[in-house]
């Protein structure tokens, strides 16, 4: 069977996801300006330990090999080790994303003793100034301390996960050296205009020239740098990047949020892309296999406004979430289309006053207190 038919099979969806993200909590010690889930405060309806374990049992029966756990800051949950232990014990590997605040000496040792566990430390700059501008004061030092603790505990190869912005594109080589110095693996992903990122995307997303720089850098580093296949819109620049060239939303990918709602992908936490809940009768399995939303995402998509563009086969029209949250039609170009079609459309819509981008449905940001003391210099 050729690779092409494999891709068309994947587009029609599988009986179970290949890659499932599970945000365990909306609680977070940080308030990153690009947070996809607008995290900050815990949602009181958060799944209980027993409910979370029941979801894991269901994923085991579906033969999901591994889950990507995130948040919020997942380690804030008191039952964090209990939940990931239950998953690993059921042969579901865990990869979790953290800002590192809770990886002290003891928890680093505990994590190092577990099999089938991967850790991604989020870092958005190779210096405190660049990183903290996005992730908050002190977050750079916190991440470095966590990495030191993992190294001392002999955790082995962890991952450093970077969201590429216009302020850190120039640091890609430095990120690679930093990762190498810890024996870590570098993972870089695309900035999405989701969650609080919907408000900051216009200032933070890489420029057109920087996109070419990212593409060349990724081609040069091949499979040594992980990307979660998030840059496939850049394939229109030439030779394809490694990975599956398709939008996996609702087909091979989905997201479970902290209250058990199931969304098509981690970047579309919005009612329009909510397929159901793990607490509904039939559970996650029924949502995945039968929900109206996921079924419709598996229908052949129309190239729409991109049909006349020779690059459509290469870029597949880009990222659904990026279009949605910038107010662009889903069957048209990505806002970061490398041929500039998205940018044209965005500015045309802005100048004609019809650009109304949907707002994320839920917001868990902490309220801003007027009495909050400024961070000390």
């Amino acid at each position, binding site marked *: *069977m050729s*690779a092409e038919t*494999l891709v068309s099979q994947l587009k029609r969806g*599988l009986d179970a996801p*290949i890659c499932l993200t599970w945000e365990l909590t909306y609680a977070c010690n940080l308030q990153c300006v690009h947070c996809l889930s607008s995290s900050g405060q815990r949602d009181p309806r958060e799944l209980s330990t027993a409910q979370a374990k029941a979801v894991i049992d269901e994923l085991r029966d579906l033969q999901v*090999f591994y889950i990507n756990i995130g948040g919020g800051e997942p380690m804030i949950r008191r039952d964090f080790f209990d939940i990931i232990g239950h998953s690993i014990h059921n042969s579901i*590997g865990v990869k979790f994303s953290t800002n590192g605040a809770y990886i002290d000496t003891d928890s680093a040792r505990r994590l190092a003793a577990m099999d089938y566990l991967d850790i991604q430390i989020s870092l958005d700059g190779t210096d405190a100034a660049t990183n903290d501008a996005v992730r908050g004061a002190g977050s750079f030092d916190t991440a470095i301390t966590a990495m030191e603790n993992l190294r001392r505990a002999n955790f082995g190869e962890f991952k450093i996960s970077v969201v590429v912005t216009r302020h850190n594109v120039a640091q890609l080589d430095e990120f690679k050296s930093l990762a190498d110095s810890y024996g870590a693996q570098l993972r870089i992903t695309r900035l999405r205009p989701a969650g609080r990122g919907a408000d900051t995307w216009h200032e933070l997303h890489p420029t057109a020239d920087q996109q070419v720089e990212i593409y060349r850098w990724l081609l040069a580093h091949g499979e040594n740098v992980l990307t979660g296949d998030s840059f496939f819109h850049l394939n229109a620049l030439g030779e394809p990047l490694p990975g599956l060239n398709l939008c996996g939303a609702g087909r091979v990918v989905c997201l479970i949020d902290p209250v058990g709602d199931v969304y098509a992908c981690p970047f579309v936490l919005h009612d329009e892309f909510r397929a159901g809940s793990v607490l509904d009768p039939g559970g996650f399995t029924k949502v995945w296999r039968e929900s109206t939303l996921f079924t419709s995402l598996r229908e052949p998509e129309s190239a729409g406004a991109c049909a006349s563009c020779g690059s459509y086969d290469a870029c597949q029209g880009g990222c659904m979430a990026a279009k949605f949250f910038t107010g662009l039609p889903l069957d048209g170009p990505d806002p970061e289309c490398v041929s500039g079609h998205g940018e044209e459309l965005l500015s045309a819509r802005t100048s004609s006053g019809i650009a109304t981008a949907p707002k994320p449905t839920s917001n868990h940001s902490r309220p801003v207190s007027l009495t909050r003391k400024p961070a000390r210099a």
Partner: protein
Amino acid sequence: MALTLQSACSLSPQVALRPEPFGALAYHYGNRRLVFLKHPDMVSVVKSLSDHPTIAATFDACGIANERRPSFLAALENLTKSEIISVG
């Protein structure tokens, strides 16, 4: 070392297979690699490798016609690189 029809192979004990319409997904819990087995016949071959002394014997048992053997052998070679199967 290049794989030949006379090599003996087996599926790694760290690998889990999930049946799919196109064949199967293979996941290696050790190196975290996810590999697509793109044909149901490939899945049968991979599953029964350890029941036979050589790859040729596995192909015989799974009814893989001679003209398909070179491409199957190449696919198996790739699976040794990702450690989904091991030689010996």
